[in-house]
């Protein structure tokens, strides 16, 4: 691909993404599944399982917010645009399917990133400092790796949402498989319960955790906020998330192509 073509593609993607931001960020399902649900989960786990550290739980909430926010937006945008047929308006416009879907993915990712930063600011940076969340943990933030982690995690979650929503006819159709996957991931990815405990009685299932992208997001987020950082481990987390995202996006593109046959 030539430079200009790449530039044009990114430009078109950004037009699509900006339009989504304007239209869908404040839709009720975006707000409920993206913002409320992670908070509800946080309180549920706070009340139910006091045996992990507060730092552990709070990084879990931030990871879940990024994940829920980004994937939810896809599950709202794509089915709505299919139902109103505005998706077809975009398909018949002069931009490649790749540019179109990357734009769609980007609007979800930006939603996840925004939520992630807001949550992290409140729960990890400000909260503990004021002892407002009940603890003052030794924060050891590595800003650039932390920012990268949030961005890459959001892209990954949005790509997953994209893949699950791209054929759905309405929001409920897309939310169902997505919610199922979310709950599987929350319990099996070490979000609120450490992996060693999750698989304590069934160690043979432990590899399952490594098939779920959220495992890598959570691990990377913990390393970059409360430390300690193991550079290799962090790098592997991020690379795996990126590879996951690429596979998810290309599968989504193929699915759309297939649906046009």
């Amino acid at each position, binding site marked *: 691909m030539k430079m200009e073509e790449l530039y044009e593609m990114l*430009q078109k993607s950004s037009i*699509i993404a900006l*339009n989504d931001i304007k239209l869908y960020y404040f839709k009720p399902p975006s707000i409920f599944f993206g913002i409320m649900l992670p908070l509800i989960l946080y309180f549920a786990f706070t009340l139910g399982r006091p045996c992990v550290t507060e730092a552990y739980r709070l990084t879990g909430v931030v990871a879940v917010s990024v994940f829920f926010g980004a994937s939810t937006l896809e599950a709202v945008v794509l089915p709505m645009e299919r139902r*109103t*047929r505005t998706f*077809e308006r975009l398909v018949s416009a*002069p931009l*490649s399917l790749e540019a179109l879907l990357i734009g769609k993915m980007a609007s979800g990712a930006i939603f996840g990133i925004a939520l992630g930063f807001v949550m992290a600011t409140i729960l990890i940076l400000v909260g503990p400092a004021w002892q407002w969340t009940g603890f003052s943990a030794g924060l050891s933030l590595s800003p650039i790796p932390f920012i990268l982690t949030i961005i890459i995690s959001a892209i990954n979650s949005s790509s997953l949402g994209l893949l699950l929503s791209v054929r759905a006819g309405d929001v409920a159709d897309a939310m169902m498989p997505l919610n199922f996957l979310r709950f599987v991931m929350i319990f099996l990815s070490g979000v609120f319960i450490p992996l060693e405990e999750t698989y304590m009685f069934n160690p043979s299932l432990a590899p399952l955790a490594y098939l779920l992208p959220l495992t890598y997001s959570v691990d990377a987020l913990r390393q970059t906020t409360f430390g300690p950082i193991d550079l290799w481990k962090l790098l592997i987390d991020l690379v795996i998330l990126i590879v996951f995202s690429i596979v998810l996006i290309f599968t989504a593109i193929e699915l759309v192509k297939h649906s046009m046959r």
Partner: protein
Amino acid sequence: MDAVQIIDVVKHYGNVLALDHVNLSVKEGEFFGLLGPNGAGKTTLIRILTGLTAPTSGRTLILGYDVLNEPVKAKKQFGLVPEISNVYDDLTAWDNLMFMAKLYGIPEREREERAMKLLEALGLRERVDSPVKQFSKGMRRRLAIAAALIHEPRILFLDEPTSGLDTQSSRFIREVLRELNRKGMTIFLTTHFIEEADQLCKRVAILDKGKICVVDTPENLKASLQEKEALEVIFNSPTSIDEEEFKKHCSGIVRLSENKFRFYVSDSSSILPLLVDFAKNKGLKILSVNTLKPILEDVFIKYTGIDPLMAERMEQLRYKR
């Protein structure tokens, strides 16, 4: 170069054969109509031409660009007004146009000038800043047309542009299309309103069950009919007619309603006495007899066969004239 070229297009949806080896070309500047009953495959053909659906086999070219292989170039050449007006409900009319203009890469200054002109031309000037949610069906259709024109395409595809609209809106849209065509734009529309095709199109193709039956000017199509006249008869009460009885004098009888029939004849004077006898024998009264010159509808009937429901609807149409 042809504006639109359809080469041996076949489309299967599972077991349904929606298009059966369609071949067609439309010249630049032409006003072309694709006429067919429900389920004929009109929408499918438009979707294939605009890259929304891939054909099972065959190719389509838009001003020489293959829709499958060079989709982006092909898509720059046309605007599409789909069957369902798919404008963004949550945006204003103005923002809808701005969004489309950006997607087509139109510079900012020009964007605004064009949008203003289009909204003016389509009678939406006062509603520039209203969210589309509040628009009537006719207004949405007009906005969809404006959105399809914002990049000044050379070809405009419209799928049933006036269906579901009242007479006044329909007439307005037809006038807009005529004007666009006069200025050189190629127009390709589908319709099941025969009148619309007759009034607007330079050439029409009749599509039935996925096959193109015939392509010609409306005038030639009408002239090609053997039956030069049709006779419409209304009796005072419901009855049925045995076609055998009239076989010698007419080539077909269509029952338009319980007591209303149409006879296709070459010479209406020869059949009138038979009709009077028929009525007398059955104890019926003839309420009215009308002779009709062939219209495009008759060509349509000849090629697609007739279905009583359809006939009734056409009936209402003819009534309006």
